[in-house]
């Protein structure tokens, strides 16, 4: 299934990419501090899709994934998710715990570390959006699950909900870890987000 690109004004798209770029840059910097390694990150690619269009995560098909999710509410409300392949999460979990070469162990300690990392990465993205759009979000508690990427529809209460995917490839040492930060928004919340970014562009 092809990923759907929502009809977003190019200036709005550019502004939103820049806001997300700040958020993912901060997330990478936070991760770098946590694992004490240099991390570089590509400029994020932003895509939009609805569950009706099928999964855009071709690279994660049939793989177990780690999903850290957290709800947020303000003038714009929704859910934010950090999605990684289990393999990528194991690598990050072991780097966080300082337990390299621990096989593919992903026990309670690694999951606790990944939950905190997800909280920080989600906070970096939502915080950047919130600061740029002058919002004040309240957060729910983060949650971690190991599931297939096709289970993302569980985060949606309506088939028309928009999934905004921020693809951010993390380069750590010689390895690349593909991470996805995903916002799940009801259509009226999505419209509100686009409207606010539009206003930001007009005011600048």
């Amino acid at each position, binding site marked *: 299934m092809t990923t759907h690109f929502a009809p977003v004004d190019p200036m709005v798209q550019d502004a939103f990419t820049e806001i997300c770029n700040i958020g993912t840059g*901060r997330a990478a910097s*936070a991760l770098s*501090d*946590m694992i004490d390694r240099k991390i570089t990150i590509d400029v994020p690619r932003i895509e939009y899709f609805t569950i009706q269009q099928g999964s855009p995560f071709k690279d994660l098909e049939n793989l177990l994934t780690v999903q850290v999710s957290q709800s947020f509410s303000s003038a714009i409300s929704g859910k934010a998710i950090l999605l990684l392949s289990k393999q990528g999460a194991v690598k990050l979990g072991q780097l*966080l715990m300082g337990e390299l070469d621990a096989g593919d162990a992903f026990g309670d*300690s690694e999951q*606790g*570390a990944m*939950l*905190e990392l997800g*909280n*920080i990465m*989600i*906070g*970096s993205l*939502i*915080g*950047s959006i*919130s*600061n740029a759009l002058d*919002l*004040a*979000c309240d*957060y*729910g*508690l*983060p949650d971690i699950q190991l599931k297939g990427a096709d289970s993302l529809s569980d985060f949606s209460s309506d088939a028309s909900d928009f999934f905004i995917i921020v693809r951010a490839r993390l380069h750590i040492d010689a390895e690349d870890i593909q991470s996805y930060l995903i916002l799940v928004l009801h259509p009226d919340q999505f419209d509100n987000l686009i409207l606010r970014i539009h206003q930001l562009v007009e005011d600048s």
Partner: protein
Amino acid sequence: MNDSIPRIAVVDDSAFFRSQVKKLLRSIYDEVDIVEFTDGQQAFAALPNDTFDFVTLDVVMPHMTGIQLLEALRLHHPDFNTPILVISADIQESTRKACAAAGAAGFIDKPFKREAVIAILDQLGI
């Protein structure tokens, strides 16, 4: 800091993050007495009845958030004057302002840098 062993409360629902804070505090002080709380409610019940040099506090926690704890301490225990450092992944300006308004002595982003924590502790004279 006086000559006695510093006594510090760490309030965070993440076991991973509490271990990071403990590691940091043990790298700053030769000896330190650390008491852990896993949510705001637990901390609210204990903090006013104990003596600490300072408290580190997360914002997003079950039962009672960090901001709710700050507000509850101010409302129900106005004499409680132990410095509280908020350490949070929530980087919103609105959250920083809300913490400051509710009486937080300082705000540090997660993940913290050792130097940043030491600078704030120096600044606060603790």
